[in-house]
């Protein structure tokens, strides 16, 4: 049994949730789908840990589906980069699924629960698949699976607010444009190279790095990926999607969807396009850096004045995505390490924060400024989670956010980009402004409806919230695991490690 699992570890990670996702429709109507989801996500989480351990120990793991060796068969190829992302996605899924039961019970009518968990698991499958696959076209297919299920998940927020539907629709339109651009990019590449296997693509593109068709593909990919990761100015689908989706969906998406987008970007930019990306006189890095700097500043400013806390954090996500992309743009080991480690750190931070908001929604029905007032006294543990998570967003030492910032600035200084370093640091200061607004609301204002008695959130919500928030502290104090894994991943991407 263990041997079997060991041998088929990569494919199990995709197959298990896929089967469970289909199965969720049939296992029952009440909490059974949730239990299935719970079991699946935690199992997959365990598998991803095993996979990452193996990758870090033995190097890249290749798996050919059905035994057909690439480039003819479909291959799964796991190196430090995607093993790390897999771990993040599975970990977040595992924790948020715990949270989902009560939260979804409160926000989604019970007859839709099984659809919800089915979509949830399919989305999970899609994200895992995108990350693990070594085949470009497969990637597109899995991207569509995850996107479609995401639209569904967002739309399920309509039980609380009908605007969830428009948000989902907008995401659908823009997501489809993005996916199409990616497909077009892949198509162009196939046209030039005749292969869809990523490793093969990389080899064949090496000498075609200034070929016009390749460049066209590159342009499509840049924009398509930009839409998927929500890089400014292609971020406009994100705020509403995050705001109106069910709370736990927001947490899950914020922590994983854009991160997988970032992974796709890493993979295409560094592994596949390689020279196209890193060479040439007028390369894309300047655009990445410029747009991410604007994202950091502009989105932070927008966040400051938001009155809906979910939307506030959504804009914060847009800014934080700026950090991730910025690290890519620097393309030196420290900057890229910062980017990758921030994928992890931001995932746990934002995941934890949205979960905490979910706990407030659970008690108060919504999270606007009004609900937030005086929450420090009403729900002390939840509020404390928000404070700690907020500090991590700011990048205060002893929180995970600080580690990412440390590497990013190191990267900036190494490449002599002083202005960018200042923007990164200035972004933290702006983060202080919007985070501190929350703190003041929570602790220094009186509740707007003092007559309503509000109790602390139930443990089933608090525990997952604090798992993630605790992780932000843990990985802020002892970041050797995240930092060294991210470093390995970065060096893999940059070709320092084969």
């Amino acid at each position: 049994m263990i041997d079997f699992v060991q041998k088929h570890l990569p494919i199990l990670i995709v197959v298990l949730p896929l089967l469970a996702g289909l199965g969720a429709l049939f296992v029952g109507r009440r909490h059974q789908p949730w239990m299935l989801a719970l079991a699946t996500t935690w199992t997959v989480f365990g598998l991803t840990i095993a996979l990452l351990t193996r990758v870090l120990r033995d190097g890249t793991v290749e798996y050919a589906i059905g035994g057909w060796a690439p480039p003819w068969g479909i291959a799964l190829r796991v190196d430090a980069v995607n093993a790390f992302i897999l771990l993040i996605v599975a970990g977040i899924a595992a924790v948020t699924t715990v949270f989902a039961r009560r939260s979804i019970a409160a926000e989604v009518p019970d007859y839709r629960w099984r659809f919800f968990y089915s979509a949830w698991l399919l989305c999970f499958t899609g994200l895992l698949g995108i990350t693990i696959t070594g085949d470009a076209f497969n990637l597109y297919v899995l991207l569509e699976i995850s996107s479609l299920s995401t639209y569904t998940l967002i739309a399920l927020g309509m039980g609380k607010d009908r605007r969830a539907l428009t948000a989902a629709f907008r995401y659908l339109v823009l997501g489809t444009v993005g996916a199409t651009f990616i497909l077009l990019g892949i198509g162009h590449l196939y046209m030039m190279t005749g292969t869809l296997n990523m490793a093969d693509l990389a080899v064949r593109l090496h000498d075609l790095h200034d070929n016009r068709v390749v460049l066209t593909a590159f342009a499509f990919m840049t924009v398509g990926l930009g839409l998927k990761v929500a890089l400014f100015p292609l971020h406009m689908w994100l705020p509403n999607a995050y705001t109106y989706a069910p709370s736990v969906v927001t947490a899950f998406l914020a922590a994983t969807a854009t991160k997988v987008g970032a992974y796709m970007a890493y993979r295409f930019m560094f592994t596949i396009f390689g020279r196209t990306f890193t060479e040439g006189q007028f390369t894309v890095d300047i655009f990445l850096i410029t747009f991410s700097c604007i994202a950091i500043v502009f989105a932070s400013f927008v966040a400051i004045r938001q009155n809906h806390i979910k939307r506030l954090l959504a804009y914060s996500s847009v800014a934080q995505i700026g950090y991730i992309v910025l690290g890519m743009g620097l393309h030196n080991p420290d900057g890229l390490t910062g980017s990758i480690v921030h994928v992890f750190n931001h995932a746990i931070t934002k995941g934890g924060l949205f979960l905490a908001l979910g706990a407030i929604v659970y008690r108060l029905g919504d999270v606007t400024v009004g609900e937030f007032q005086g929450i420090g006294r009403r729900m002390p543990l939840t509020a404390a989670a928000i404070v700690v998570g907020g500090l991590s967003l700011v990048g205060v030492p002893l929180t995970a956010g600080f580690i990412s910032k440390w590497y990013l600035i190191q990267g900036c200084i190494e490449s002599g980009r002083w202005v960018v370093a200042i923007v990164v640091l200035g972004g933290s200061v702006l983060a202080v402004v919007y985070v501190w607004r929350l703190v003041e609301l929570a602790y220094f204002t009186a509740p707007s409806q003092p007559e309503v008695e509000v109790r602390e959130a139930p443990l089933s919500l608090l525990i997952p919230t604090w798992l993630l928030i605790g992780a932000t502290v843990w990985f802020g104090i002892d970041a050797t695991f995240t930092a060294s894994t991210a470093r390995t991943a970065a060096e893999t991407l940059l070709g320092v490690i084969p």
Partner: protein
Amino acid sequence: MSPLVIALVIPAAGALLIGLAGRWPNLRETVTMVTAGTLFAVVASLAADVLGGGRPTASLVEVVPGIELALAAEPLGMIYALVAGFLWIFNSIYSFGYMRTGNEKKQTRFYICFAIAIGSALGIAFSANLFTLFVFYEVMTFSTFPLVTHKGTPAAVRAGRIYLGILLFTSTCLLLLAIIWTYVATGTVDFKAGGILAGVVTPGVAATLFVLFILGTGKCAVMPFHFWLPNAMVAPTPVSALLHAVAVVKAGVFIALKIAVFVVGVDFIAAHDLGTVLCWMAGATVIIASLVAMTRDNLKALLAYSTVGQLSYIVLAACMGSRLAIEGGAMHIAMHAFGKITLFFCAGAIYVAHHKTEISQMKGIGRTMPVTLFCFAIGSLSIIGLPPFGGAWSKWFLALGALESEHVALLVVFLVSSFLNVAYLMPIVIRAFFVAPDEGTWDKGVQEAPIACLLPIVVTSIGCVALFLFPDLVYSFASRIP
């Protein structure tokens, strides 16, 4: 466990126990006292070790590969640790009197935050590298925020915003940048006697880094980053006393000295005049702060600006590139701490006993609070730097350092500042004792603050004299700074 670690664990454990004992004020206060006492005993034993030539180190955790949270004791840090540890004991006693008499709310939170703040002060004092230093620096900022906003009034919230805004802005945008830059340039963040920048980076880069370091340490309150300090005076007086005269602000200037000695290197500074810009800024701060202090009627505001000026003495010590000045600056950490905490204690005692905050209301108050005002006089004279009070010695070394490093203008700054200090501190005492009060005030005879407030005042003012008579208490450490 290394005593260094114990020194950090004690306040942390104290904070926890204080929280648990929160419902029983007497128990809670006992816990605070025991924590403070034990902590000082540990620090004192460390001090003895350091004086004997020991340089204990301890590593806590490797945060990211190559960078760890690590502690090390050395003489400069010992001065700061000893001062903070010693004064915490008496500040605690004072707090009991102040907080209970004033019926302040949320006293448990107050004592918890206090313990954490002191813990972070020790963390700063014992940092073995820039990273650790930065971590504890930020811990201190956040742990003192609830103390500053203790009253929860709109003014307190505003002060809290300014406090965090400036301290976080400077530490994030400047200090952190400088630390990472140093790391990139030298490959290390560890403190090293003689500096880690010397010989590795060009003087131009070193000067820039130096500026970033010092201005980034917003707790130094070098203008224009001083605004947080006067605004933080909205906090209860024990906070102003220990934190904004001793622990927090001294963290800033301690870091300035630490950077000068262990990162940039005094000889490097002297050889290339790396601190010129900073000398100008700090020198201007000294003078301007004194002038502003002259115009304040609110006693705590006046003391705050006085602190701003005095802090820049130590910043100057760090920046002028003279070993004598470094010794003077290190001594001034202790000298100013004792003087200024006395003054804040007195301001608080006046508030507790008579609810007066403005100097113009204190005409003739010496008749009703003779002990308090007498101690205020002693504190003032020590701040001014007159014998026979401790401040005279540190000023001696600072000024001698100014000459040694050929900054005659800074000598003038020190002297003019002393002169201005006389002009704004002495009138307070004199009007209290020698000007007839308005009709109907203070006619109830002697009415001092409670003994818990009075005792610390007396102790710290005796300290001001003791530091003059026995300067080796501090100098034995200062002279061992490498």
